């Protein structure tokens, strides 16, 4: 096999392995809203409810993301696995950092202003974080597309 042919095949390999990750670029309008409502409900369940109702609602809220992932997997034409293109690591770190920031922000608002204000603030912060993550991911995916064009 000639070097040019080997290079062409490796390029096709990189393009193919990245395809499922690029499919995830571009989030939908309801996703920040949905995650915001979910996180606000989580804060309220921990801050307002007591005893068995709190346990039940909290368990349901923990199960909700698992159900979401299952549903999301079924509705998509492809679902990624394995190593992601290196450009997408930036958005992954953004997601981790934003999640930690919201997790630290929420209890501090709760202790300062109570459950309802904390729920509202957490919901808004989560929605903003999801929106930002979606934009960073889309920008990173565009860099991958340009490299593999």
């Amino acid at each position, binding site marked *: 096999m000639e070097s040019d042919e080997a290079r062409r095949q490796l390029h*096709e390999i990189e393009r*193919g392995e990245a395809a*499922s990750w690029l499919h995830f670029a571009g989030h939908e309008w309801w996703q920040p809203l949905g995650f915001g409502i979910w996180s606000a409900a989580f804060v309220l369940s921990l801050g307002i409810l007591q005893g068995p109702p709190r346990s039940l609602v909290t368990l349901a809220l923990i199960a909700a993301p698992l159900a979401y992932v299952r549903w999301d997997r079924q509705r998509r034409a492809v679902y990624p696995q*394995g190593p992601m293109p290196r450009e997408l690591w930036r958005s992954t770190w953004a997601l981790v950092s934003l999640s930690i920031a919201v997790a630290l922000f929420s209890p501090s608002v709760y202790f300062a202003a109570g459950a309802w204000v904390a729920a509202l603030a957490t919901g808004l912060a989560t929605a903003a974080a999801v929106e930002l993550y979606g934009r960073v991911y889309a920008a990173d995916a565009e860099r991958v597309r340009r490299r593999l064009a």
Partner: protein
Amino acid sequence: MTRAATGSALDGLDPILNSPKRLAVMAVLEGSQFAEFGFLREHLAVSDSDLSKQAATLEAAGYLTIRKSGRGRGGLTSFQATAAGKAAYRRHRDALRTMLG
């Protein structure tokens, strides 16, 4: 690169995956849990019949499984790489990388 090193790298090359379309199918499946027919057709920019032909060859080699759900126009066909398919694909990819140093 020595002749021996080149020779052993070439041993990893899979004749089934030397076809660019079949290699592209396996590359998408390497990075995916599964992929639907329509997604692969768009990625490869091929016709329905061409993709069906390539997929049938890969299925006959034991490199992927084809799953059909529903019937008629609303039915969906999806593909998943088998363990043997992934192993062959990775050997092929590693051989290419070795060849290019």
